[in-house]
């Protein structure tokens, strides 16, 4: 089977507390519902959840969403260590791709949805990002910035597409609901172009535009 792994790498620093983190926690069951009631999509995709603040943690290891009954909730606290997020993501992908291949699957390049509401508080994050993007299984990164996130930083993190919240138009919680809906659409639409044996063309179908967000030109440095 051809598998497309998705990683949700979510900021759970202190500033995400309250409505924003609740919005994500409320959206995750909807994501689960959508994928798990569409077995063709569930067959061909896997999902993992990584939360980061002072440190980064794999909250939900890569899994077939339709096999899950619960997901760990995000909980806000601490600062915003981008570096840890990238290091954990890189290690996680390396293990997961190896495991999937050992199970006899073929694996498409993973996709990471990165979400942050702030600027990185660690000094070494750019080096960690470079190690991730130069790694063998470097994911396609779609980065979303809300609240205090910095446009230049978000566009630097992304290598596929970047979005910034339109401050005045929408609340962070509403933006996060749109973010989650966009993630769900990406999984469903991308999976619908995957054939089990890898024949035909696979297209990563990520929204060009997300309501409440502005699409940011990627930094080509």
């Amino acid at each position, binding site marked *: 089977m051809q598998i497309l792994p998705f990683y949700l790498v979510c900021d759970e620093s202190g500033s995400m507390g309250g409505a924003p983190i609740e919005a994500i926690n409320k959206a995750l069951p909807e994501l689960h519902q959508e994928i798990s009631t569409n*077995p063709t999509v569930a067959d061909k995709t896997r999902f993992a959840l990584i939360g980061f603040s002072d440190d980064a943690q794999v909250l939900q290891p890569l899994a077939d969403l*339709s*096999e899950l009954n619960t997901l760990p909730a995000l909980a806000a606290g601490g600062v915003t260590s981008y570096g840890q997020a990238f290091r954990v993501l890189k290690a996680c992908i390396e293990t997961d791709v190896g495991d999937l291949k050992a199970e006899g699957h073929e694996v498409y390049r993973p996709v990471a949805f990165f979400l942050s509401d702030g600027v990185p508080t660690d000094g070494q994050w750019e080096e960690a990002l470079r190690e991730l993007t130069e790694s063998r299984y470097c994911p396609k990164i779609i980065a979303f910035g809300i609240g205090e996130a910095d446009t230049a930083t978000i566009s630097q993190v992304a290598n596929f597409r970047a979005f910034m919240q339109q401050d005045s138009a929408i609340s962070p919680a509403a933006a996060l609901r749109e973010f989650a809906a966009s993630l769900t659409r990406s999984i469903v639409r991308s999976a619908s172009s995957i054939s*089990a044996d890898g024949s035909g063309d696979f297209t990563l179908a990520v929204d060009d535009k997300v309501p409440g967000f502005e699409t940011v030109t990627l930094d080509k440095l």
Partner: protein
Amino acid sequence: MTADDGTDVPLSSLSFGGKIGDGGQGEVHALRDVPGLLYKSYRAPHEVDGQALAALVAVHRTLPPEERAYLDARAAWPLCRVVDGGRAVGFLMYRAPAAMTWQTPNGATKLTELQFLLREPKASWQSIAQPAPGQRRELALALVELLERLHRWGLVLGDVSQANILWTVRPAPAVHLLDCDGFRVAGRSPVLAQADTPDWGDPLAPVGSATVDSDRYKAALATGRILAQDAYTAPGRQLDVVPGELDDRQEAAVRARYTQAAGAYGTRPTLAEWRTALVGRDVIRLTAAEPAPRPPVNRAVLDSARDRGTIPLRPPPQD
């Protein structure tokens, strides 16, 4: 409003009751005044072949009443075009029967697509009633009979997949086709360019083609997958039929057809052959009739039996 006579309906006359579906080529909307009808709108009306859509509407309109009722019970057929500014922008169709829907754990209503028949049930969709032993065969037979009828009417389906076939076993096994505007009158262009659903293509068909033979291959795919409860098996691979579905005679016939379906493009079993295999009747082998031996000719009874001379047509040679 009625859609039965197939006359074009102006877009401005419709009152929408909310979007209920979103696909690659268009959206499906409920209609406020007519709950049983749905409006499918095309995302790119300028790419729509309005004549091809009219041809599908005409197929429905010109069927004898009992055949039209058969089709309406089994397919979301384009009943009439919806036009705006002289251009076809969509069509009206009947809503799929409630028996072909199910409730998700959070109360949403979803269509019972073929994909839910091709796998071991999971907790997330456990509310879908699964077939009892023997009912997979009945579902495959219902599908094959429907496709056979469409072929007899001169239609080609093109894309047949886990997403455009609905099914139910309540109260009895039945199937229902969606996305019928993807079908075409044989030899004509489709309403919009069609692509095969991944895992549902005919590997031997010319790329981009949709023919009666590729439909036959896809009928074999669907039949094999339904009987084996396997979303990815295909002719050419071993067919592991769910125990209790087929008797020995049916199983032998199905296996023979499944093997034949893996053969060259143009040689796949017809829908009628699939129907016979699934019904499990004995096949009566017909030997070619030999002509009766001719009786010896009694030349005496024939007028022509006379001793005629010959008429020389050239003057005899002069010495």
